[in-house]
């Protein structure tokens, strides 16, 4: 169980996080979703005993992050935002080093990292600095796992990593979850939210929604429409200038639109756009995603 109660951290006058409370059940994958600067790293550092909160309290496995920091440090694996690898050590040397400082060996816990480490083992003599982003990420995860932690804290493990490696990474996390490891992970990629059991949406130092991904989506209170036309550039402009527009954001190949009044007015919108000369216009109701919800909350403030 990871629990945070009213955690607050300021850096001088700059707000890191303010009044954050949540709890993560054992065996859960808990996602912290938000852009850079939202306070994700501050929160991780407090939970991993690296920062003292100004206010509030946090426990990891019933241990207090301030008082019992030594005990916590034995139980957790932590992968900081910048993959913390020694660039001038080889893949194998990095892993062996991290095993040693936790008083264990690669052999002893090989079963834990096997699935992940096997993918980079062919390059075990290569210096970590010469690995690609995806491989670095796998090595960093192996290093965080090698001492068999009960809790895994992964701060933006998928940032800057390509879509394929990202998907593989999430597959690995699911495997780890099945081994009983509790995982707290942060990401700026909204689409990864659906891979978590529960997520917290964080922005500017505070959490504005905690729920299961489906829950967050069903909380989205407006009718959402996906629109397409031949000239997306003009469509975007015209939607922004429409009198009843609450939001209009590009989403992949279409534009997601919500109207000021909660249930939208597709017919008058369609007429407006046809009047504007749009051809091949498509307008259909669609399901909101986490990103729609996030932006809705952001713009609501």
């Amino acid at each position, binding site marked *: 169980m990871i629990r945070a109660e009213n955690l607050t951290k300021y850096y001088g006058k700059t707000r890191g996080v303010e009044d954050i409370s949540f709890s993560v059940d054992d065996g859960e994958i808990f996602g912290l979703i938000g852009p850079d600067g939202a306070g994700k790293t501050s929160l991780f550092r407090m939970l991993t005993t*690296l*920062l003292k909160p100004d206010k509030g309290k946090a426990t990891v496995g019933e241990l207090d992050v301030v008082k019992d920091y030594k005990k916590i440090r034995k139980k957790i694996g932590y992968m900081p935002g910048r993959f913390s690898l020694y660039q001038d050590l080889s893949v194998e*040397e990095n892993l062996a*080093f*991290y095993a040693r*400082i936790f*008083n264990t060996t690669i052999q002893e816990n090989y079963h834990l990292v096997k699935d992940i480490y096997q993918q980079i083992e062919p390059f075990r003599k290569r210096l970590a600095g010469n690995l690609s982003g995806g491989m670095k990420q796998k090595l960093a995860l192996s*290093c965080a796992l090698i001492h068999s932690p009960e809790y895994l804290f992964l701060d933006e493990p998928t940032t800057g990593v390509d879509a394929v490696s990202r998907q593989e990474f999430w597959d690995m996390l699911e495997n780890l979850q099945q081994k009983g490891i509790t995982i707290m992970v942060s990401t700026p990629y909204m689409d990864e939210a659906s891979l978590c059991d529960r997520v917290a949406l964080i922005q500017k130092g505070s959490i504005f929604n905690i729920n299961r991904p489906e829950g967050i989506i069903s909380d989205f209170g407006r009718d959402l429409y996906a629109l397409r036309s031949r000239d997306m550039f003009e469509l975007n402009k015209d939607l922004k200038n429409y009198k009843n527009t609450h939001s209009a954001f590009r989403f992949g190949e279409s534009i997601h639109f919500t109207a000021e009044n909660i249930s939208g007015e597709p017919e008058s919108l369609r007429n407006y756009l046809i009047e504007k000369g749009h051809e091949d216009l498509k307008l259909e109701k669609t399901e909101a995603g986490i990103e729609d919800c996030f932006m809705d909350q952001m713009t609501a403030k």
Partner: protein
Amino acid sequence: MKRFWSFVIKEFYHIFRDRKTLLILFGLPVTLILIFGYVIRSEIKDANIAIYDPSKDEITKDISNKLLASDYFNLVENVQNIQEIDDIFKKGVVREIIVFESDFARKLEQNGEASIQLIADASDANTANLVVNYTRAIIFDYMNELNRNNPNPLQILAEPRMVYNEEMKGAYMFVPGTMALILMLVSALMTSISIVREKEMGTMEVLLVSPLKPAQIILGKVTPYVTLSLINAVTIILLGYFVFGVPIHGSVFLLLAECMLFILLALSLGLLISTLTSSQRAAMFISLFSLMLPTILLSGFIFPVENMPEILQWLSVIVPPKYFIIIIKDIMLKGVGMSFVWKETLVLIGMTTIFILLSIRKFKIRLD
């Protein structure tokens, strides 16, 4: 223990994989010693000497001839009266006066030992030292020859005495000075940079989150640099001795022990700097300005402390290399023991303790 060693090994990997730094680490001491050594004259030829020989027996004549037969010395005058010595030096021609005991041969035969005083004009400390050392070497050679088939070896004591500059200020400062500089560089600068680099790379976060204790992190970081520093210290001493004839009159053990003490001091300074900074660049600048510059300018290495303005003299009191240089010079050149350098040693021990305590207190178990 295994944990500790794996840390140390990792640290050595860092050092040995960084070829450029490695080159500086080992190239710099050699280069510096060679530069300083050659800038300061290191050989003597036809040094003017005078001899006072009241005994005028076989042995004293033999020794005199042997000295003069070498290319090193040139006899200017035979001193008749011991009172003249001062006047002779004042003329500034003679570098060294060799004073035999009276009844030299007889004392040697009866007591098994006799003594020669080597009085040198130490206003030019380096030359004085060289001249005295060359003389001693020749006398020593002669004694060995004399003792070759002798079951009761005879002792000829050659006692150097410096006039005008008994403290030997300015003599061979390049060896202790370079040593102070290099040890500061390797121990303080390198240690602080290597610790700060972990902060910059983000690896420190993971080390802190691991069950490693702060002391283990510190010791693991520091141990390789202790080794490197010791190797450097020994290299400098050996180079000085074999290439430039800088003598080691005192105990080698004491010399190394003092080096070790200074290395610890420099390391603790490096640690302190690393706890105060968070970027390699800052660590570098702080090390350069707060350690290297004082070592070069205020320690007496290049400019004698006595000649500095009073403010700087006061400032030099807190510059650790100043004490180290005094100690090393005294041990190497004067051959004194602990009873002469205990004060300076105590100062260094005190400083080391303060710095270590400070840096352990300052070492953060967290990031803020």
